[in-house]
């Protein structure tokens, strides 16, 4: 059940992860091998078993809605790759320019 090239590219696109040709080939091999080994899971009878998302689950964690100080904009923006005034600078979302 080796993954196809197209499947690898599809997953990479979902993850917005650029891959070069060598990476596509390598991940095709490695992911196929890993998934083949993880297929042992299919042998476990899980009929009627509830899935566990958190092993130590807390339910309905609530807190009061209190106003507290936020970090100032200059500190928030200190790590920004591109900024303009008090804003993060982003690339155009609609169209290229």
């Amino acid at each position, binding site marked *: 059940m080796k993954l196809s090239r197209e499947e690898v590219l599809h997953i990479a696109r979902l993850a*917005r992860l650029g891959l070069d040709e060598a990476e596509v080939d390598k*991940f095709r091999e490695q992911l196929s091998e890993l998934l083949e080994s993880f297929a042992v899971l299919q042998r*476990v009878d*899980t009929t009627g078993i509830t899935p566990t998302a*958190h*092993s*130590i689950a807390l339910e309905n*964690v609530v807190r009061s809605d209190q106003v507290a100080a936020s*970090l100032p904009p200059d500190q928030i923006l200190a790590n920004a*790759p591109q900024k303009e005034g008090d804003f993060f600078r982003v690339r155009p979302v609609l169209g290229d320019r």
Partner: protein
Amino acid sequence: MSAIANHSQLTIHEAHQLLKTRQISAVELARTCLARIREVEPELQALVTVTDELALSQAQKAEALIAAGDAQSPLSGIPVLIKDNMCTRGVRTTCSSRMLGDFVPPYDATVVEKLTSCHAVIVGKTNMDEFAMGSSTENSAFFPTRNPWDRSRVPGGSSGGSAVGVAAGEAIYALGSDTGGSIRQPAGFCSVTGLKPTYGRVSRYGLVAFASSLDQIGPLTQDVADCALVLNAIAGYDPRDSTSVPYPAPDYTQCLTDDLNGLRLGVPKEYFVEGMQPEVATVIRTAISRLEELGAGIDWEVSLPHTPYALAAYYIIAPSEASANLARYDGVKYGFSYLETNNMWQAMEKTRQRGFGPEVKRRIMLGTYALSAGYYDAWYLKAQKVRTLIRQEFDQAFEKYDALVTPTSPTVPFRIGEKVDDPLQMYLSDVCTLPINIAGLPAVSIPAGFADGLPVGMQIIGKPFSEETILKIAYAFQQATDWHKRKPAI
């Protein structure tokens, strides 16, 4: 061992006594660790950042408090290393990734805040597998860290830098994080004590997220008594981490007695896996017999039949959570950004292609696959159901036993380069530790002996929130043995 090492390899409780009785000053102790760092770092490369100035200013403040008799905490003035995935305000926090190579957090992680309020002295940030994904610290984007017991071998991972820092005396103790064994496995490989607390016992606020339902912060120390002291400082509810539990934390030093009479310990046979190094099994069986001599009742024939499925379940669940957590690295808000295009999607894809290393990409791909349309039920949901079975099996075992005892790893430290291109072989080195994260349990790894001159760790696993029980067992073992006192020749 060098003259400097003698002082930097003190335990917390020893250093605290020397500080309190004014036989050494906090500044001298910090300088000793910084000198030791300069001495061993060229060979070991355990640290990403050395925080000389911060350490000396914190040491001066601690010293003033100690002199005035106002130091309340046994951690006051004691040098510590922080794994580089915990945010330190004003100090670069890289996760050993190009993606965060220049990232300087504007806030402290809760654990860092807690240590700072105890007047701890931070001497550096430790190297790790990139984003904590790995078992050898070879996945650091910067450099591999070397095992002080044999520099051609890995220190384990992902908290390899923290384990090496403690083993080599670059600081008195360290913090690590553990998602599938990342505190315990390197602790075992470097012959130090490492505790993964129960999920929720320690706040994850400010810990860069890898797999949120599995990640937990814990101490790496010279011995169990130190482990209890550090856990006292970092455990507890934090309103900023909604998965931290709202139960009060006890004083973990109160449980440290050497009487194991009446305790029932189970040895699950599935943890003596096929492919396990026979010398490792021998060391662990001998260590367990020692626990029996100390009064514990041992059942050598416990079975946890779902154990063989834990690895597969883990490597679906952890990468799935990672693929979601790492979606935040888009080159817009912080971190590396590919600036040579104005096309949004291309910029995002190139940012992630160049910012992440091979193992991180592999896990993002694996997780994205397991969560994608058409595969979610067959992989992710299936793994979560198997997770339930594994947890239930532990619950049942803990009806009969106070703790379970296993090897920490199936082998001694392997050679650098040996497994780096074979992900499945690398993943198998966590086979004894990752079931514990799946079930959210506490577990401690302590030095249990040596095989061919290389360290072997023993793992003691407890029921949720029974850190006191496993620390007591580990403490009793260390009172009766001196494996934890042996230091590497460097």
